[in-house]
């Protein structure tokens, strides 16, 4: 019976209903074999590859967000505890923000690792704006950069003004001794009349505004206290300890620097983690949206290719029946 059917197929004669189903069945089997063995080039596998990589990216960014969130919890308690440290100094000496001096040194605190949103760019922008604000005849501004990302941005146009760069600050959990040594280093190598520390203060996970803390050198403090104004009351304070007033003021200024720097580095670390959390969160959300769109395209392409093959089978079968 099989030979009879084959003969009929080759001669193009009408076939019975049973034969039609057999022919269609055989064609379907052939197509299924094709799918198992060969690659049907219709673009759907390209989309499948893209979907796989986007899904991986989504997983990675979700994981990074979780890591940042857990690290943030630890650093945040430390930061909040260190907030009381600079307040006595500001209560005593006021905010030296508006004090105009000849030698400004801008200390930019930034992060070492990337993928943390825009905080490093804001810090660098504020530092550069500060340089412009404090520029003038006989005045000079220098930079001390903490962190690789800030260095990369500042090196581009202010290379000759960078005195010192320090990196790998966040490698070990921060403590005061480490920062005190760092402050000592900076004080030894840099001449300054006023130090301006630029960092991102941590308000909440989504808000980290740039902040500037000022530390005046002891000579300027003396000058300002004689001139009156905010620091004018300083003369009213009796000085206990040390041989001379200037020695005590020197120690005071150095101690203030280490305390303020400690707080600044902690706050910036917190802000970095918060920014990374929100950046990774929006990144995984975008990846999810992209995945949805890709899935729709993939299904459409897949269904189109199946429809095409069905059409081929059916038109082939109907051609055979006559």
């Amino acid at each position, binding site marked *: 019976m099989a030979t009879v059917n084959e003969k009929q197929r080759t001669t193009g004669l009408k076939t019975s209903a049973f034969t039609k189903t057999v022919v269609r069945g055989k064609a379907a089997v052939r197509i299924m074999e094709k799918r198992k063995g060969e690659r049907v080039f219709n673009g759907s596998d390209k989309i499948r590859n893209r979907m796989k990589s986007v899904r991986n990216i989504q997983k990675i960014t979700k994981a990074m967000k979780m890591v940042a969130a857990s690290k943030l919890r630890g650093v945040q308690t430390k930061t909040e505890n260190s907030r009381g440290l600079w307040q*006595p100094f500001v209560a005593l000496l006021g905010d030296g923000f508006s004090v105009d001096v000849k030698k400004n040194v801008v200390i930019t605190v930034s992060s070492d690792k990337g993928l943390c949103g825009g905080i490093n760019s804001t810090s660098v922008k504020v530092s550069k704006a500060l340089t412009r604000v404090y520029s003038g005849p006989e005045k000079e501004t220098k930079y001390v950069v903490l962190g690789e990302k800030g260095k990369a941005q500042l090196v581009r146009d202010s290379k000759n003004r960078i005195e010192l760069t320090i990196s790998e600050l966040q490698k070990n959990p921060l403590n005061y001794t480490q920062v005190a040594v760092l402050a000592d280093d900076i004080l030894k190598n840099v001449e300054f009349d006023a130090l301006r520390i630029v960092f991102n203060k941590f*308000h909440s996970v*989504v808000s980290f505004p740039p902040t500037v803390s000022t530390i005046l050198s002891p000579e300027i403090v003396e000058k300002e206290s004689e001139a009156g104004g905010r620091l004018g009351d300083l003369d009213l304070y009796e000085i206990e300890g040390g041989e001379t007033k200037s020695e005590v003021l020197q120690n005071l200024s150095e101690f203030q620097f280490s305390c303020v720097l400690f707080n600044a580095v902690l706050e910036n670390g917190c802000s970095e983690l918060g920014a990374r959390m929100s950046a990774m969160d929006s990144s995984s959300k975008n990846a999810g949206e992209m995945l949805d769109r890709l899935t729709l395209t993939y299904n459409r392409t897949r269904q189109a290719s199946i429809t095409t093959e069905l059409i081929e089978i059916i038109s082939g079968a109907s051609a055979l029946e006559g």
Partner: protein
Amino acid sequence: MYRQGSRLLMRATAADGARLRVTAGSRPASQAFSTEVTEAPAVDSSFLEAWKKAAPNIDPPKTPLAFMKPRPPTPSSIPSKLTLNFVLPYQSEISNKEVDMAIIPATTGQMGVLPGHVATIAELKPGVLSVHEGNEVTKYFVSSGFAFIHANSYADIVAVEAVSLDRIDPSLVQKGLADFTQKLNSAVTDLEKAEAQVGVEVHSALNAALTG
């Protein structure tokens, strides 16, 4: 992005808020976030103008004064209590606590601070800080730091390290003292001498604190 970020992270910020509320009682008002503190008008207008000229598109940065509660001015009569702030790098030990007296170890000797004390900046040496409140006395061993006493009977003590006396081990103190005295005798360079000197000072102060 930030709009959606805030929606998604509402859980996180609610958790932060809960933590804030939980610790609000123990933390001082002066450490509240700036949303609870009005911006002090201390930012100089001349500076703001200069900033606007130099960087018109960027918001001016915040300054520490904006985050701190302003201190009350000097009252005309001597207040009855001293408001004490004792801060360490990793903790605020005492914040805005009203006490009767504090004895601080200044480099010129033990200094008693009562309300109405004249404004002073004192450098601290290693020694015992005792806080007297009514009948109770709390003692801490302070490594070093600074103390500011303001005219409005606010006292700020900033120290690098402080421990309560019962956490000090006397045997280790003796050993340390012996160690550093030996190092001082065998020190060659100035730096070594200075380090050994510091060690001797701290350990003898510890000794005195434990015995006295």
